[in-house]
């Protein structure tokens, strides 16, 4: 094949690749770099090394951040209280099991943030089986059912800002749920209550996530060979068995995608938290790493520490990303 064949793919690829690598991939390393420094976002120096003060009256120079190298200090700071908090939590549960009257201990913000991320990781995927249930519920062909499907899908296209507001209205202590709150004595509602806020946000997150999983599963269901299902029915397989032994295994590709996307989504959730509670009430009771990082960087002017949090979050997510890519490459090779 000729020279133009060898050159062509690079030419087609270059614009997208350069654009993407410069603005998305390269910055990842930038954040790693910043995480080893301390910077308040306002001190600069000239790119040639002079400090701003040395400039003459009307002289300007290209400004670069004046950052102080701190090595792993930021990382140590993030995990500083972790051992102590782990101990306190252990004591709490020990107390619970031995029947004592214990109160949930005071924890550092970092620990609270980490715990919240764990709650998201564990609870957010509940949307997946619910999405499957909806998909099974709606997997019928009459036109009216198909139109209803669209109405079930639409939460997915809502902006998180809108979603956040909708659920805030819902959760408001004098809102539609106040009869519920009165019955249980929840005077602060959900997002006003330190212990309940995160759960309220997760429930809000389920709304679009269930719709997404429903779409994925409906597509997966239509891809199953009808003949397989008929053969199994003729063999006498009834609903639950059919579901468990024929349908679910065939839905594995859909489940895989739903799992990876949902877990990644659980860790990425910034918008909802920022809109609904801003991380509170109090310090960090509903905060997650994604949002805490934002606050630390732009509001507390602690760029280095913020970058550190981002790096830790990124490394955690890298696990899931790697799993996804490995599966994808395996599939490409098979095809």
């Amino acid at each position, binding site marked *: 094949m000729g020279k133009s064949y060898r050159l*062509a793919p690079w030419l087609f*690829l270059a614009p*997208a690749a350069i654009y993407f690598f410069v*603005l*998305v991939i390269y910055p990842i390393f930038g954040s790693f770099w910043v995480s080893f420094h301390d910077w308040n976002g306002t001190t600069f120096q000239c790119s040639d090394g002079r400090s701003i003060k040395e400039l003459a009256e009307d002289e300007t120079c290209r400004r670069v951040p004046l950052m102080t190298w701190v090595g792993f200090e930021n990382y140590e700071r993030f995990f500083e209280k972790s051992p102590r908090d782990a101990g306190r939590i252990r004591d709490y549960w020990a107390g619970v099991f031995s029947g004592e009257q214990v109160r949930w201990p005071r924890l550092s913000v970092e620990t609270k943030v980490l715990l919240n991320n764990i709650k998201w990781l564990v609870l957010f995927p509940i949307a997946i089986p619910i999405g499957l249930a909806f998909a099974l519920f709606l997997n019928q062909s009459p036109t009216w059912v198909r139109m209803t499907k669209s109405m079930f899908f639409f939460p997915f*296209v809502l902006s998180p*800002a809108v979603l956040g507001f909708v*659920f805030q209205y819902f959760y408001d202590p004098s809102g539609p749920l106040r009869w519920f709150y009165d019955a249980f004595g929840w005077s602060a509602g959900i997002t006003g209550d330190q212990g309940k806020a995160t759960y309220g946000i997760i429930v809000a997150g389920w709304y679009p996530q269930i719709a997404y999983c429903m779409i994925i599963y409906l*597509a997966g269901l239509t891809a199953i060979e009808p003949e397989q299902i008929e053969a199994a029915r003729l063999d006498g397989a009834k609903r639950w068995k059919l579901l468990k032994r024929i349908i679910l295994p065939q839905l594995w590709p859909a489940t895989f995608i739903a799992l990876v996307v949902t877990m990644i989504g659980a860790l990425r959730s910034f918008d909802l938290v920022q809109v609904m509670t801003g991380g509170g009430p109090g310090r960090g009771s509903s905060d997650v790493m994604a949002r805490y*990082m934002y606050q630390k960087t732009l509001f507390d002017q602690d760029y280095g520490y913020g970058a550190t949090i981002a790096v830790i979050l990124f490394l955690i997510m890298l696990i899931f990303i790697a799993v996804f890519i490995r599966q994808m490459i395996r599939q490409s090779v098979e095809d």
Partner: protein
Amino acid sequence: MFPTPIETWKPQARTGYVISVVIVLILWLMPLIIITLASFMTADQLNSGGRGLNLPQPFSVDGWRTAITNDDFRASFVNSFIIVPPVVLISVGLATMAGFALSKYRFPGQLIIFAVFVGGNFVPFQILMVPVLRLTQDLGIYNTKWALILFHGAFQTGFCVFFMRNFIAQLPSELIEAARVEGANEWQIFRRIVLPLVRPAMAALSVLIFTFVWNDFFWSLVLTPASPDGMLAPAGLNNIIKGRFYNAWNVMAAGSLLVALPPVLMFFLLQKQFIAGLTLGANKG
């Protein structure tokens, strides 16, 4: 088909199904129903216990009027309409070329490059925040529309490359070989054979990207925080209306519905494309 097709059910079971679907649908749409009701209520009704499943009494468009006449909120809406289409064009266009290269040619490193596009699409925004912020400041586009166009164009390219590469891979390679034997050069092959055949996929992808970028909140906050010149609609909703009209739930409700409207409309009009876009890959393997 699983479960058994409804046509084979007994009439009672069928009616039972219809009723249950309706009930579930209403419960599912409840948040939306309540917000819509709220948007037509007066502030008084809302503050005196009218929140919830009540009819607006009196019916009022105060909320809508206030939201629409707010200059800054309107400006953020206009910004969205100015910012989002170029992003869609850039990301889908560049990704189609890249997808063609990655799926219909063999060259060293293609799988790794593809993996980087896919992986990059999943990274948390926060890992990019500081460097991208600094970059827009250095370029002098901080707080302007350009920052959002530039960045979103790049970021969405990741997902678009994933999408287009998988779609183009499914085109029969023989078509391209036939064109090659006939004397077409690589650019002619792309423009006259591949491009016409991937138009449906590009349409589907464009709808998805429109939705993703329209709904963006984070980057709008970071790159155009106080600026009516650059803010996108959701951020406009949050900052302006929530900031100034806190506790005016009817204004918030109307504003929310306005922000939600374009993607929802796009979705309902172009459903097939939308769902086709999302489910590409759900059936592989």
